[in-house]
């Protein structure tokens, strides 16, 4: 123990004392220095002891210079000045002299005094109230429980509760607005929160009444926006109510005249709002939401309005959610949707209309994903090439590139440039094209029907958004003839050149359709083989194409969106889902098999 004690204290060595004495011009004998050193140690410990008392009474864990100075002052020793700075003082050493010192820069007082950037005053001390509702075990309230003991509410609260619910669910819009406003700002309704949550959970019983659903959602919004309410795990309950409105095939949606789409949109917005503002209250909320959205999306039995809800929900949760959930599902899902959209029977008209809704929603979501992806990639590119593997790894459902192999900057900047140029180009003429530098079996196969189709009718010039985010290894200047990603890098004349070349390639690949693509890929990019097959498709490529006439579809196709598949896809998605399609889209006739249908989205106007 003694050893430990010894080590726990600061020791001032004899040499230090001598040095300090020398610095003031006193020459000390060894024994004197030793005695002094010992005394200094003792006094130091004493001061530390006393100062810790000041620290304890100030209810702090950290001993400050101030504490030590107080201790010194009370033991009638001069305080040490100049060390009261809030931030840590750097401790430096000089190698030659084995000296350690605190850096003490000179401060130009004149400059300081005449400085124009006068520091702002400290923030005002405030009393902030944080209310926690607790159960007996020290946990924040478990979810979903709604108290039955209404009588424990005070009369005033009870009255307030009745008034508010009546006003919100009643038919006076003015009154409703007042009630919602009050709900949004009232600071004393904490005790009523469970009741309101309970009311809101009544969405399930009014699913036939869009108006009521709307009002309940507004109620949610007010509660969420109330700064005085601590929602705690009621967030869960609120979220489940909102999710109900987003996802469920509401009774109201049977009637096509009912605009349940708006409700779903609103609910999705609300969901994201709740999530961004209160998502931290419940752990794992994000994943739960994503899971349930995913479940709906992947369930082909669900009606299209549910799917629509899932897509807008994902969209509202941000592009990452889209990337994580929607994107991997898209190929599989697309087959079903395609089938619905391509059914022109009268009986299918309603379903098809719904299908277009979903299609539109997917387009919007994906477009956002593309933009954000581009932005994030551009940021990472600016941040330096080293970021690239990270961005690649960050994508969940597919791989942007194989981190170990890809050359950092070149492809990235290309991608950025490409996206940017296309976005800026706006309405610049640019026929739809699709170019995939990294050939994959699925992609090659897909080019087959689409490539030629696209290139045949490019009469109308429409804004085109093409993102090619392939980041593939081709740093070594592989002997390839065409310029790197033409659709991205090319502008003006260069672009047309690139286009033609890409078209050529498409064609050439299409001519070889049926072949396994390995050979093709080697043609185009010899290095592609570095991308090991088991690591999934190394490229992801979107094309939202310009408007044109479809070859097989009678309708116009103003946009074409292409998605590369991920290798984790089932090899035969169209077929796998084909037999389910009648159920999904309520299409009577068998589905025509499109080899690549699950890669493209067509939105007929």
């Amino acid at each position, binding site marked *: *123990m003694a050893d430990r004690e010894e080590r726990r204290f600061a020791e001032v060595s004899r040499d230090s004392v001598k040095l300090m004495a020398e610095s003031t011009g006193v020459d000390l004998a060894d024994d004197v220095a030793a005695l002094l050193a010992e005394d200094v140690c003792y006094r130091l410990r004493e001061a530390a002891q006393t100062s810790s008392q000041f620290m304890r009474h100030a209810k702090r864990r950290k001993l400050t210079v101030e504490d030590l100075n107080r201790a010194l002052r009370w033991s009638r020793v001069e305080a040490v000045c100049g060390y009261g700075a809030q931030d840590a003082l750097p401790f430096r050493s000089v190698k030659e002299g084995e000296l350690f010192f605190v850096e003490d820069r000179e401060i130009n007082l004149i400059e300081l005094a005449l400085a124009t950037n006068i520091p702002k005053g400290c923030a005002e001390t405030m009393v902030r109230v*944080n209310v926690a509702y607790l159960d007996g075990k*020290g946990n924040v309230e478990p979810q979903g429980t709604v108290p039955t003991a209404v009588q424990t509410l005070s009369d005033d609260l009870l009255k307030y509760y009745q008034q508010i619910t009546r006003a919100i669910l009643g038919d006076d819009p003015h009154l409703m607005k007042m009630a919602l406003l009050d709900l949004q700002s009232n600071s004393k309704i904490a005790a009523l929160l469970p009741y309101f949550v309970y009311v809101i959970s009544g969405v399930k019983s009014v699913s036939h009444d869009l108006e009521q659903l709307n009002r309940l959602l507004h109620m949610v919004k007010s509660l969420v926006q109330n700064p005085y309410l601590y929602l705690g795990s009621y967030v869960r309950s609120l979220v489940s109510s909102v999710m109900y409105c987003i996802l469920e095939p509401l009774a109201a949606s049977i009637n096509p005249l009912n605009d349940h789409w708006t409700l779903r949109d609103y609910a999705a917005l609300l969901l994201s709002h709740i999530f961004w503002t209160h998502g931290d209250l419940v752990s794992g909320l994000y994943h739960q939401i994503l899971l349930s959205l995913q479940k709906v999306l992947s369930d082909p039995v669900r009606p299209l309005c549910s799917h629509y809800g899932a897509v807008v929900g994902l969209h509202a949760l941000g592009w990452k959610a889209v990337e994580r959930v929607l994107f991997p599902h898209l190929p599989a899902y697309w087959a079903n949707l395609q089938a619905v959209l391509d059914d022109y029977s009268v009986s299918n008209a309603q379903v098809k209309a719904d299908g277009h809704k979903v299609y539109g929603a997917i387009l919007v979501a994906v477009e956002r994903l593309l933009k954000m992806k581009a932005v994030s990639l551009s940021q990472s590119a600016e941040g330096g090439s080293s970021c690239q593997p990270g961005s690649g790894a960050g994508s969940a459902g597919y791989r942007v590139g194989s981190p170990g192999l890809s050359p950092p900057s070149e492809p990235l900047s290309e991608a950025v440039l490409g996206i940017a140029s296309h976005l800026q180009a706006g309405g610049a003429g640019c026929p739809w094209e699709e170019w995939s530098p990294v050939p994959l079996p699925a992609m090659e196969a897909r080019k087959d029907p689409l490539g030629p189709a696209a290139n045949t009718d490019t009469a109308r010039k429409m804004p085109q958004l093409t993102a090619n985010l392939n980041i593939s290894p081709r740093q070594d200047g592989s002997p390839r003839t065409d310029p790197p990603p033409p659709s991205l890098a090319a502008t003006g004349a260069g672009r047309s050149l690139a286009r033609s070349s890409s078209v050529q390639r498409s064609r050439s690949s299409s001519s070889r359709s049926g072949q396994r693509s390995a050979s093709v890929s080697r043609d185009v990019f010899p290095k592609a083989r570095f991308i090991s097959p088991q690591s999934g498709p190394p490229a992801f490529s979107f094309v939202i194409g310009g408007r044109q006439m479809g070859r097989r579809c009678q309708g116009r196709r103003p946009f074409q969106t292409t998605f590369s598949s991920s290798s984790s896809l089932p090899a035969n998605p169209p077929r796998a889902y084909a037999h389910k399609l009648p159920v999904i889209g309520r299409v009577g006739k068998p589905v025509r098999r499109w080899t690549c249908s699950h890669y493209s989205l067509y939105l007929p106007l």
Partner: protein
Amino acid sequence: MAAVQGSIVDAKEEADIKSEPATDGFGNNHANEAGVLSASPGSSAAAGNNKPAAGAPEDQQTLLAVLQFLRKNKLSESAEILRREAGLPEEVLDPKGADSAGSGLGSGADIDGGDASALLSRVTVSAAGGAKAPTKAGEDQPDVNVVLSAYSQQGDPALYEVYYSGLKKFIESVLDCHRAELSQVFYPLFVHMYLELVYNNHEGEAKAFFEKFSGDQECYYEEDLRILSSLTKKEHMRGNETLLDFRTSKFVLRISRDSYQLLKRHLQERQNNQIWNIIQEHLYIDIFDGMPRSKSQIDAMSGSLAGEAKREANKAKVYYGLLKEPEIELPLDDEDEEAENEEGKPKKKKPKKDSTGSKSKKQDPNAPSQTRIPLPELKDSDKLDKIMYMKESTKRILVGADQLVAISFFFPSFSFFMSPLQGLTAVDVTDDSSLIAGGFADSTVRVWSVTPKKLRKVKTAADLNLIDKESDDVLERIMDDKTASESKCLYGHSGPVYGISFSPDRNYLLSCSEDATVRLWSLLTFTCLVGYKGHNYPVWDTQFSPYGYYFISGGHDRVARLWATDHHQPLRIFAGHLADVTCTRFHPNANYVATGSSDRTIRLWDVLTGNCVRIFTGHKGPIHALAFSPNGKFLASGATDGRVLLWDIGHGLMVGELKGHTECIYSLRFSRDGEILGSGSMDNTVRLWDAMKAFDDLETDDFTAATGHIHLQDNSQELLLGTYMTKSTPVVHLHFTRRNLLLAAGAYNP
């Protein structure tokens, strides 16, 4: 370090509290000494026990010494009063008496920053021994020499280790049942032997001795050992407070007769005079008949700086009952309550009425008489407040352990987060939870209104003249609406504000600070009314009495002082603690004051007599929180060791130990009905304990009040009702509202 400062000695203080006779009519520092005399019979009793014959004369000698001191300082009036009070004949004031206490006088004249306890010891030493105390008047700290002179006896330094290890071997060889008890001797013996070595300049031996045996000591003495270990030179012994504590107070051990005989026989057989002398001189062995105590029993009670409390120290009768509430049944109020009664709370109402009714009919046998301490009369506004309180308490949520889960929704905990910039050091909330005040390290005191009602100042004198004083709403009219704001800042202190307390009527605020003052602020004008100067060192805590008017403060000078708001000097000085008084609390009946100290003891003082009536030992660290249960029977204390201990005041026993916190406990509070104890700590948690159960278990137990040997079961986990984490906010203050909502306050430390 209760400084005896001759400069601000006032000849005499009119210290009678209204009708009370001036029993303690001394000036500041004299009262201090008198407090020592009356408040700690321990010291004289300690001496008296060893030398029973010397007891009474010594007492008188001490008195004489004090008288001499007074005379020397030309405080004849005070001296006269003391003489009269003590019933001494006139002639004691003549120079003849001075001889007997000459040494004390000689040194007393020129000490300025001396130590009260040192002074006392000097007086007792010189009075009792006389020849033994070589006083060198004129030296800067002669008193220390006197104190240390006890160590002058010289044994062979080389033999110390042999002695100690011999005793150690012996104790290790005795029967198990005695070993635990006899092991208590180790620590004080070790300390005193070490100090003797140091005093006699055997530095090397001292170091070796320390290194060899310090590891054997109980872990809860680690703090003291650390201080000791840094002390290796005689010169350093001067002014070392811990050292003085060891010398001036006898370390108290409780040992059964059998064990004691065993030890005595051993030491006498071996002719081990060195150890025997130390035991005789520096230890007080409280011998009891009966079974030796077990290790856990001993561990529960030990840990204090000076050992356990003597049994007789806790024998005095304590009137822990509550005072009768004044009857303020207004007819209007009755109707109101009746109406509420009909609405469906007859159950809660009834016991309430019963309890108040019974109280008003017959006096609680344990309660002090109503006029034992003169209390201020109730004002109309106080009565109104009481009515409000009664009304609210009927709406109180019962927070028993079983209901806690059921009423979870209505048991919220609020945290008041404050900006951390200035360093929040103290918080208080008014009884009705309408105001909250914070003391800060930047010397400011801030008051916030928690309700929508803003804080307003009273208008200026000129404006007040214009007001129609006959109007009904004159109280409203005197307020200046222009000054309305949510918070007010009070400037006046010149050091961190360590303690803060609202008066019960919410008109005043007390704050104490490092600048050694206690300040009284008006919450009507938001200005400082009085600065109470008396403590000469930082004041750590202050609190208003539950009836207002009086307040208590305690600080680094090791004394607690009782003040009345209209007196600029203290009415009582409670001296006896061996280290800083870190927290002070009033008993709900205002007749007693509890103080917690860095010497790891809690003392209960009688406000009327100034005596120490209870000493509670058992904490292993400085005590930073105290709370009386609402019924006045129990006391809860929290310390830096993270434990909450529960004490039965009537029996003077430890009745519970609540383990769970990992860091220093800064706040304790019982719920309004006393069913729940909340504890807030530096570890960013609030814990709730089932106080009812803790106290109930006890009454069914076989109460070993006679011996005072408690046996605590370790049931902290059963008693813990909940642990509530804050957002990195050390909990500085807890407050149960009248409806039993728990408010926790602290500064947010991101």
